[in-house]
């Protein structure tokens, strides 16, 4: 899924390089909705990869082109002969989708002859909207398969157009998101992290469609909580298999993300006078500017950010220099509740007076230190 560029500009992002919002950008943002800096970047569509480019915090970006090639080939296999393979799988999977077998109408929105760029996306978004309305109203000529849908949504107060890679299968007024992924299902098992990411993407698609239906005064329940992930089975790419997934959690999460993308007035006031630096400025100046903005807006570094956020390496260094326990992960922070830094943990372990909220963790640390020292001295059996 990708979106077109922008109407209007956020003042804090006026000079910064911008990028189109994609589902991967939104899915990444969903991982750190508690980070104000990240929300500012999302709302202003700031291209953090570009901002960190050429600095020592540059994220390693770019997907493996051979993996992309595999993904495209798998999609081609699914789309062959008017989606015959996919439709068979859907038919086998669910009796409620039985209608697909009888009278299939495919809306190929990608193939509409529209101009390139934003105006083309607007035309496709309008066509998608009409198709969705037909499905929700259960019109006789409603499509059963939507390919290449474009959905209009407001992110951070601005209109964006999302182009869906996924498909949507509809029957009896109910629409199911179908996401094709090329990682394999081996002997009934697949990579749970990748499956989770695929479900998150499908959930985002479902949430955007629901928002669109609500905007048009149509029942959003038309989008089912049940989605399908299509994967190649075992070693061969040409044997797809369908996994039925309950997407309700992912849809709720995506809806929360879409609502959070609107920034609070308080946050905007807090960063007043500060903005993301321009791409053309020197590396040191850019990092300094970003650090100041981080100070003012606030960040919430977690190790998982390294997988999703282009600013993570700078955040990690800042957290390390501050000696924050957060660099170990959420579990360490949770279990050492009240203790923020490594130095404080060591002081408490050595017997420093704990504050009220540190008392429980301090007791544990003192015990751990005493037993550890005794074990090192060789006290054992």
């Amino acid at each position, binding site marked *: 899924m990708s979106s077109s560029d922008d109407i209007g500009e956020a003042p804090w992002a006026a000079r910064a390089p911008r990028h189109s919002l994609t589902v991967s950008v939104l899915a990444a943002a969903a991982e750190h909705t508690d980070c104000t800096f990240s929300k500012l970047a999302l709302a202003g569509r700031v291209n953090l990869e570009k901002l960190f480019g050429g600095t020592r915090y540059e994220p390693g970006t770019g997907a*493996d082109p051979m993996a992309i090639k595999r993904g495209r080939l798998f999609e081609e296999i699914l789309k062959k002969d008017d989606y015959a393979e996919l439709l068979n799988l859907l038919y086998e999977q669910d009796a409620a989708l039985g209608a697909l077998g009888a009278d299939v109408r495919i809306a190929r929105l990608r193939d509409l002859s529209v101009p390139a760029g934003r105006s083309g996306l607007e035309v496709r978004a309008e066509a998608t909207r009409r198709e969705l309305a037909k499905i929700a109203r259960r019109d006789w000529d409603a499509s059963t398969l939507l390919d290449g849908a474009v959905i209009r949504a407001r992110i951070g107060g601005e209109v964006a157009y999302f182009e869906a890679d996924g498909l949507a299968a509809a029957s009896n007024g109910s629409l199911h998101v179908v996401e094709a992924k090329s990682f*394999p299902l081996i002997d009934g098992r697949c990579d749970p992290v990748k499956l989770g990411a695929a479900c998150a993407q499908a959930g985002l698609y479902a949430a955007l469609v629901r928002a669109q239906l609500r905007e048009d005064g149509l029942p959003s329940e038309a989008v089912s909580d049940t989605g399908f992930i299509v994967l190649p089975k075992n070693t061969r790419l040409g044997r797809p298999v369908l996994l039925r997934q309950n997407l309700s959690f992912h849809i709720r999460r995506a809806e929360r993300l879409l609502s959070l993308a609107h920034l609070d007035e308080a946050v905007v006031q807090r960063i007043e006078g500060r903005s993301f630096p321009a791409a053309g400025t020197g590396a040191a100046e850019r990092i300094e500017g970003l650090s100041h903005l981080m100070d003012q807006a606030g960040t919430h570094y977690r190790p998982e950010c390294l997988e999703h956020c282009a600013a993570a390496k700078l955040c990690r260094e800042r957290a390390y220099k501050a000696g924050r326990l957060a*660099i170990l992960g959420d579990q360490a922070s949770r279990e050492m509740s009240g203790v923020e830094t490594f130095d404080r943990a060591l002081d408490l372990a050595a017997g420093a007076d704990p504050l009220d909220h540190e008392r429980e963790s301090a007791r544990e640390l003192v015990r751990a230190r005493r037993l550890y020292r005794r074990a090192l001295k060789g006290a054992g*059996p």
Partner: protein
Amino acid sequence: MSLQTLLSATAYRQGRAVRSALVRHRAIESDPVFLVAWQNGFDPFSCAAIAFGQAHAAPELFLMSGSREADIEAREFAAAAQRFCELFESYAVASSRVDYQGRKLEVPVWPAQVVIPNGATLRLLGRIGRRLAGMRHPDPAVTAVLRRFACHLLWLARHADLPGQQIVLSCTDFLNAHWVSAMSALECESLFALEAWIAPPGRTRGFEAAVAAERFSAGPQPKPEDAQTAARLFGALEKARKGGGEGPAVEEALGALREFYRGLTSPVWALLLAIAGRERDIPAGAHLARRIERDRIAYGLHLEGLGRAVADPRGLRFRENARAAALRRDELERAAALLEVEEAIDDPLRMLPRLLSGEAIEGEVLTCTVSRTDGATAVLCTEEPCTLPPGLALWWSGAPFGRGWEIERVEATGAGSKVTLTQPVRKDPASCPAAGTRAVFSPLHFDDHLSYALSLPARAPWTHRPPA
């Protein structure tokens, strides 16, 4: 967790990782097979390059050129398979007899060991094995060697799940089990970053060294920049092949790919050798010998059944039925329980989690009386209050077998407790703690009945026999 945080905080302050184990809990053979594999982004069941060998020689690198011609692909895999099988089976040259489940079994004197960078490499090997098991070639010799290779890889991937095994040594798992750094679990998956924390160069602090080391990948996934270079080189090879035949253009493209993967492999190879060399010098845990023996038997059994599996690959099961899954689960749970006991007995640091959770007690033995008729009684003075209830059985870590010591009485003494433990059965004085020494009593012990016995005894018990 408080212990983990304490060790991480110490590592943070010292600027280098600290040990979380006093002894080495995994064997590192004197001449293991080192293996590095690089993933092919297009096909998760294949690899772009695989390098392996022993420390005394340079690694042999085999390139899988990603050809769509089945014959080229099979022959490329066969070359790597042939060499791997030779190396892996070479450990079985000398054998000895052991008693195993009531029969005499001829097993290799030493088990093979394959040292790999990380768990992701192991998963890749499993996938390659999964694919090659079903690959057929008109030349029966090629098919046979591919199946043999597949059998080895599938067995390695399965055996690696067994807690405490050491035939497959994943370096990140090994280092994470013996060292603690101020990195998250996610970052600890990078072998280069982990090693940078353990042995930072010069006066560099672990964090800076790890950040610098992150630019390298230990496989199987190359760094994004390298993946793009690989894609470009594979593209050039495909283009050259379209020209027809195996001319100089193809050779040139293959040479460039080989050179590229050699460049990716060499820092990983050097790192694996350095880690194995350094860690081998650390004294091994006392119970390692039992696990080596278990691995030796497993390796012997695998080689014994190899011929059958190669002749008829239908015997290779990829999905377990309910019974097999239950048996496997039982085997894994037994191994995990036994490993925990062995490690805690061998290493006082591994006993700490039990002490911290209050399940074990430690203190000075005030008295220990051993009677020929009444068993033994020990009184332990602990520095911390004992919260364990009377009647609970605990085992002294100096002799963690047989019937346990029962807590008879717990009396408060200032900050700690005075715990009286009794042993109702007659005890050998050597299996009782001496007065004046420090002792640990914990629930960890060696038990033949760690879990439900799934196999019926060979001879029915008298209750189940027909009357004579």
